[in-house]
């Protein structure tokens, strides 16, 4: 069964159907979108259930010629890493749809309500495609095409400075994309294998200098996307101006394409260059962790604050990707997933607050805990996941990234530890200012979460808690793929100084 094509086809057909809904029946369009996204979720879970953890690396593989003369294929398949990222995307979409129920109704919106929801479904198909593509060219096409729906979601439905933000987002991404395009074509030409299939291109580029140039082409594109410091400045604008739901998909999923691309393409296609650039990238990552956190502390706008926390978190992910250890790699992959849930919850709750109060400035809130305890409580849990509190899944990934990095690179890991303290400062200070203290006049009548909003937040918190105590299902899927990636890179195996080799002592009674 062509699982992945079906997964992409359903939302595309759904998008067409939503677009065809007659004017004036916005509710139908919304319900249809929610229904389609839930079908995709169920299909994905059905596919994931058939994924064989000990089987071949790439599963559900489909390869068809697309442009045979240039060796371009429609080739899709997933390994454990791609699978969990697709799962992240399809879990977030229905949640975002439900959360955005009234977001496109606002009079400032420049396009129709149904268009917004159709765009979400188009984006969903592309998000699945980009993680599933095993043909480098196909990946590039998805990588660029994803910009279009997101551009319109920000530019037509966003806040006051949406045009500025949308253009900035587009320009940065296009700049990165062009570099990558050059690298993609050069890779094809220099490898001279007559194909764009990623597995067949492994080890194809031997010359160290060529590797370095091509690596940079891909890496800068991914670094802008991720975003890695200092390519990050588009993100706070885009995230602050985008509607909350679009911000979740942007930061929660689209940006992960950058870090995923580093793992899948930068590391596997150019292992020597990756090792060469590792010190540089670890440095940028550590700067991003500390810098993003410090700038987050100084924000006065909660959506910008959340965006800067993500820059700090992306520092952890890229550090984990390039630490070249099994623990850090697994941690970075998990981090991509957990960060999606965590930031998703934060952005959506911030959106609920903004819808109620009409302001995204922290100073316009105060004492919300007293008037809307459920809203404040869930906001706190989402915040705690952002500061990686043990018991929530984000802790597992951050701990693995740190300990895995520490295995190979002591100094970056130790500096990154300070991110723990800074995260506590930016989250708890925001919570104190918005939720604590005396009740501000303007929030006195602030309603608590309604049923729809509870259905938005509950699954995210449930996922954070369940994977916080029981990360094994994710790790079991991710571990083999990370192991294979590291084998491709020839990363050394970790050996402790004084290995305690004996079985647990005193087995039996």
């Amino acid at each position, binding site marked *: 069964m062509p699982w992945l094509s079906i997964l992409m086809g359903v939302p595309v057909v759904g998008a067409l159907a939503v677009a065809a809904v007659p004017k004036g029946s916005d509710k139908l369009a919304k319900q249809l979108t929610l229904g389609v996204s839930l079908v995709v979720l169920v299909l994905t879970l059905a596919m994931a259930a058939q994924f064989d953890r000990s089987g071949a690396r790439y599963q559900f593989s489909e390869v068809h010629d697309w442009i045979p003369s240039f060796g371009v294929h429609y080739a899709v398949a997933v390994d454990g890493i791609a699978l969990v990222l697709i799962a992240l995307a399809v879990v977030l979409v229905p949640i975002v749809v439900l959360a955005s129920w009234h977001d496109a109704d606002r009079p400032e919106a420049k396009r129709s309500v149904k268009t917004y929801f159709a765009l979400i479904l188009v984006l969903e198909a592309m998000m699945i495609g980009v993680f599933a593509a095993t043909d480098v060219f196909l990946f590039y096409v998805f990588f660029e095409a994803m910009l*279009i729906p997101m551009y319109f979601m920000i530019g037509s439905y966003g806040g006051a400075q949406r*045009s*500025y933000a949308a*253009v900035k987002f*587009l*320009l*940065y991404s296009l700049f990165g994309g062009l570099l990558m*395009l*050059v690298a993609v*074509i050069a890779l094809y*030409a220099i490898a001279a294998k007559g194909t764009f299939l990623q597995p067949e291109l492994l080890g194809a580029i031997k010359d160290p200098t060529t590797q370095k140039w091509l690596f940079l082409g891909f890496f800068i594109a991914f670094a802008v996307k991720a975003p890695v410091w200092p390519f*990050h*400045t588009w993100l706070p604008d885009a995230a602050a101006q985008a509607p909350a739901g679009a911000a979740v998909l942007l930061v929660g999923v689209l940006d992960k394409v950058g870090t995923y691309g580093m793992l899948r393409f930068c590391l596997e296609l150019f292992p020597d260059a990756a090792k060469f650039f590792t010190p540089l990238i670890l440095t940028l990552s550590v700067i991003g962790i500390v*810098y993003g956190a*410090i*700038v987050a502390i100084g*924000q006065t706008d909660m959506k910008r604050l959340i965006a800067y926390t993500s820059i700090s978190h992306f520092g952890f992910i890229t550090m984990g990707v390039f630490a070249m*250890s099994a*623990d850090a790699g697994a941690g970075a992959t998990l981090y991509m997933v957990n960060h999606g849930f965590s930031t998703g919850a934060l952005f959506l709750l911030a959106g609920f607050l903004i819808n109620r109060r009409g302001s995204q400035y922290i100073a316009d809130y105060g*004492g919300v*805990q*007293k008037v809307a305890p*459920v809203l404040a409580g869930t906001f706190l849990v989402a915040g705690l996941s952002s500061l990686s*509190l*043990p*018991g929530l899944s984000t802790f597992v990934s951050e*701990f*693995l990234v740190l*300990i*895995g990095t*520490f*295995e190979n690179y002591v100094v970056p*890991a*130790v500096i990154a530890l300070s991110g*723990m*303290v800074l995260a*506590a400062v930016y989250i*708890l200070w925001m*919570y*104190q200012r918005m*939720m*604590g*203290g*005396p009740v501000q006049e303007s929030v006195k009548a602030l309603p608590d979460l309604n049923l729809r909003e509870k259905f938005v937040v509950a699954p995210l918190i449930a996922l954070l808690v369940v994977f916080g105590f*029981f990360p*094994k299902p994710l*790790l*079991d899927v991710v*571990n083999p793929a*990370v192991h294979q990636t590291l084998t491709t890179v020839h990363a050394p195996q*970790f050996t*402790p*100084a*004084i290995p*305690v080799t004996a079985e*647990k*002592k*005193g087995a*039996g*009674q």
Partner: protein
Amino acid sequence: METAADFVQHSGGVIGASWLTIALPLLGAAILLLGGRRTDRWGHLLGVAMSLASFVVAVLVFFELLGFGADQRRRVVELYDFLPSGSLHVEMGLLLDPLSISFVLLITGVGSLIHIYSIGYMAHDPGRRRFFAYLNLFVAAMLLLVLADNYLGLYIGWEGVGLASYLLIGFWQHKPSAAAAAKKAFIVNRVGDMGLALGIFVVFTTFGTIAFNQVLPAAHGASEGTLTLIGLALLLGACGKSAQLPLQSWLLDAMEGPTPVSALIHAATMVTAGVYLVVRSGPIFEAAPTAQLVVTIVGVATLLAGAIIGTAKDDIKKALAGSTMSQIGYMMLAAGLGPVGYAFAIAHLIAHGFFKASMFLGAGSVMHAMNDEVDMRKFGGLASVMKITWITFGLGYLAIIGFPLLSGYWTKDGIIETAMEHNPILGWLAVIGAGITGFYMSRLFFMTFHGRRRWDADAHPHESPAVMTWPLIILSIGSVFGGGFLIVGNRFMEFLAPAVGRPEEMPSFHPFSLTGLVTLALVAVGVAYAWMRYGRSEVPAVAPRGSFLTTFARRDLYGDALNEALFMRPGQWLTRLAVFFDNRGVDGLVNGLAALVGGTSGRLRRIQTGYVRSYALSIFFGAALLVGAWFVVGNL
């Protein structure tokens, strides 16, 4: 020193079900938090029931553990495969041994009493259900901390109690001071947690595992430098959680929380977690003398600092908080002295759990009677109107100053004697600390219960209801007999030996040792001086200015000022600078570059909306064109 007993895998029996001690209060917390207002009516009862049930399981576990021979009492119960990563593989399990079960009994026992007391204390608070939910959450996290059989499990519990502490200090979020204190506690603790995390990293890269039953027996094999590093990193964590110098500043502010919280979390249990960590990691510290030395220095410095702060506080809870710091300083000192010290450290910890909880709850009872007043200058003469509180508080007071034969006498004296043998400087400083304790605790006791009544006009003090006084009575019984029961005949020393190792020579008790006599004499001087100043003489309603030393003590030895100057101010500057730089520098540079390349004005903000869209689209189509062009060129 003989090493501790081997670890035994265990399944079945009550010990096999010991996870219930954690699961029950966790379930309670979940029901109360998710149930919302529906559970308001009976929420507090559920909270108490879950805590008591946990205590019952703990007692059963304790007796089953006693049924095994001494060398069979380190039992590991595997729970589930928690973190199967590439190199790091953590299986979550519980370690039941004399050390952990001592903590479990203290936490669930004293914890249950404080739950019961809170029924009365929080009776009129609209958030009582939420309060009990957090208390249950705390008990669950604290039990995980002491029961986990690996450092990661300990760490999860460690930050879990930090969360509970945050939630409970900030329980009255609407008070800005409470919200700020909660945040401060969490952040300062996180500084310590960095150390704990680092310690775990080094343990893992050294031994390839973080399970106690694999790391601890192998510890002596690592180099001293590595072990010292691990020890110091763990100590940083311990300093945060246990409010030891230099991470002590949060504890005094933490008194913003409701008083039962101060009793349970910030006196009897959570703040002693640092002592647990050091004792649990004993084999690491024993092979790293430098780390041990630093532990003892931190302990002595904090026991003196806490005592000095205690002398100058007029807020009854803050004075007690200073004394908590000081008493944990004693425990920390002992924990740095190896196996003899471990037993005294834990014995003092248990005794302290009783007498300090008794006094904190007593302070709560006084506040309950005095319209939540905490200023001792407005108390006085309360002995006659609240007899039970007076007696139970008095017994706790006598226990903490080391009145002969009461709990603190045995346990603190053991610590002082051991320290004296080990290093006379540390020993004499600990003796001086005991003298100051005699003074400041007497000051507190006399100012509150004796002398002239200095009450506000609207104060009508009365004894607290039975649901509050019974816990006080039970705790005060512990304050009287607990220490003697543990220390006499080395009972606790023998009990703990399988877990922490048996000292070469069991300590023998000399009732009339020089150290003991000097300590008693100094305490007597402290009590007498306090009686002259605060019992017999008039206590002024407004605190006199006092010398610079008084100010020094009142300002918490300038701990906050130091933090502010060293971290907060520079941090604020750095933040402002970074935000400015990010808006103007990085972003400006890129915008400028774009302007240069694009030849536009560069002020994207000013561009007309419609124009922007077409501009962007044209770029996009331009890019698409370029794609095609490159593609063709690439194939030529």
